[in-house]
């Protein structure tokens, strides 16, 4: 539920999730190898290691594309949230698949020469001043280094000790890794393989990732509220906030705010989970606690504190009700500050919309 890092607590879902990752990756590798072997003329077999370099390299790019699509997809449909959960397993697997690709490349293309493989990686193509001739290997090395940092710090131990802000910033490096990998592919194998399928596949990855993130950013911007004269933000009619759910406000400055209704009480807290920055406003109140949809971290909305023995804290916000509408003071209280909930009249609460049916 909250901080207290240890070995992975396996359950049925996590096992199925990881089995699916392994199944998808093995399917891709087996099919790629089998089809390559079957479609080459008998007198033109591809060298085995070169075949594996291509299989593992293309798979790692495909997996990174998938990883980057999960976040925006989960924003548009809660059904994708289980995929978001344990996305780190997908990320760590991607790193190891990319590592196999990189080791095979170092051995095959840069090994057994008169200079050492690492030096060869960076000096064998000196055309750093050219776009078409750019040494694409260095972009791949950059992406691998970032994926390594992310995989090495994926455990909650690092999240807790680096601090959520630094940890999040470090893991935002995935976008730099993706950009480097796009360059690695575009300036590397795409310049050799002439079939339009390869350019199309690369373009589809870039367009999909970019479009999903732009759509997500646009959706977030839609929630931006202008403050009233006293600086408070209008969160809309109280009864339009589904019970145990939240509406999310985007103030002119600062973090977004999640305004929860729990029966007759309305409370506002930071929308940003202290664990991995998950969107608390997309979660719900369970057992009296705001529960993050990403990994289940919980906070008491009355004071922004995780229930004992945990000690994470998030900012709380003052709320008030006027003419059935909820207003929020965007000047947040220090994390963990108790704040009085806004109480709704019982008669009005009785008029609340019926529970949503599945």
């Amino acid at each position, binding site marked *: 539920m909250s901080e207290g890092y240890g070995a992975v607590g396996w359950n049925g879902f996590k096992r199925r999730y990881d089995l699916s990752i392994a199944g998808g990756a093995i399917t891709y590798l087996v099919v790629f*190898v089998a*089809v390559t072997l079957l479609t080459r003329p008998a007198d*033109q077999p*591809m060298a085995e290691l070169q075949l594996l370099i291509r299989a593992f390299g293309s798979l790692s790019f495909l997996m990174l594309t998938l990883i980057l699509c999960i976040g925006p997809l989960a924003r548009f449909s809660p059904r994708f949230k289980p995929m978001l959960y344990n996305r780190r397993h997908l990320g760590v697997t991607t790193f190891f698949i990319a590592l196999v690709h990189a080791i095979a490349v170092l051995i095959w293309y840069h090994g057994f020469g008169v200079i050492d493989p690492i030096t060869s990686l960076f000096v064998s193509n000196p055309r750093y001043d050219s776009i078409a001739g750019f040494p694409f290997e260095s972009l791949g090395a950059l992406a691998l280094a970032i994926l390594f940092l992310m995989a090495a710090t994926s455990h909650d131990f690092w999240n807790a000790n680096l601090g959520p802000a630094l940890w999040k910033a470090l893991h935002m490096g995935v976008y730099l890794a993706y950009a480097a990998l796009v360059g690695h592919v575009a300036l590397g194998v795409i310049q050799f*393989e002439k079939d339009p399928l390869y350019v199309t596949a690369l373009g589809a990855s870039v367009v999909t990732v970019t479009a999903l993130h732009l759509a997500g950013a646009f959706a977030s911007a839609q929630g931006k509220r202008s403050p009233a004269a006293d600086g408070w933000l209008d969160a809309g009619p109280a009864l339009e906030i589904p019970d145990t759910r939240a509406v999310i406000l985007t103030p002119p400055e600062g973090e977004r705010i999640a305004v929860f209704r729990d029966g007759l009480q309305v409370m506002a807290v930071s929308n940003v989970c202290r664990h991995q920055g998950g969107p608390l406003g997309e979660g719900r109140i369970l057992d009296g606690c705001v529960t993050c949809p990403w990994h*289940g971290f919980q906070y008491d909305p009355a004071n922004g504190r995780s229930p004992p023995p945990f000690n994470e804290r998030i900012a709380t916000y003052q709320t008030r009700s006027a003419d059935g509408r909820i207003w929020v003071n965007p000047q947040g209280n220090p994390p963990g500050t108790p704040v009085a909930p806004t109480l709704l009249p019982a008669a009005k609460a009785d008029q609340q919309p019926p529970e949503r049916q599945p």
Partner: protein
Amino acid sequence: MSDDNDYFIGYAAETPARDRRFMLRLGLSLTLGCGALGAGLAAFQRQPGNGTWDVEDRQWQGVVHADPFPMLRTRDVDGTVRSLWLVCPFKCGVRTIVSAYDGQAVTLRGSLIARDGFYMLAAAEGSDWIAPASSTAEPALGLPAAESLERVTLVGEILDMKCFAGAMRPSTGKPHKACASLCIRGGVPPALFARDRRGAYRPLLLVDENGEAHSPEPLLPLVADPVRIEGQLLRRKDTLFLSSPIADIRRT
């Protein structure tokens, strides 16, 4: 099922039925998609070329020559004289060793790399792969004189002959650039991989304007890039050479 039960919590023992069904369908779709994409990307790869490397070391006899590149002149089983270009087992040449035996009859151990009538021997590992033969050098196995053909301007790609002949498949293009550069830096003969008048690809060993091996360093930035070379076509029996100064090699 209530809405409460529908809320996914990753650490919970039970996954809501709706999420289970969705993830099952999504997992199957992604697996099938992975398979389809893997099949497509694999099927449309360029053909890698038809070189072969018989990695079993065999005994060879003939006369070795050090220049312009180390070679063994030997008789095939049918009596045909062939040139077998010599390299080390890895990404390097053997000029220093072969120079000690220049023009002499030798026996040596190595594995055959062959492609489209071009033959190369990768020396066996260790230092005792070559030894003087008891016989004298047969005159027919001497270094063939260079026959000057015509001046040509050719467009193609500079690569190393070992990878082209079968050490790697594919052995051309940007992905192979670093390897070709490493091989040429180590002393493997460089060649221009160009189309002839009939449109077929063939390699021409690159030598300088004096017919000698180029110094590798100036060639390295040009390796695996599309280049145009203006030079003199030479033939030494079964091997074609393109002779030009480095300055006449330009990127296209």
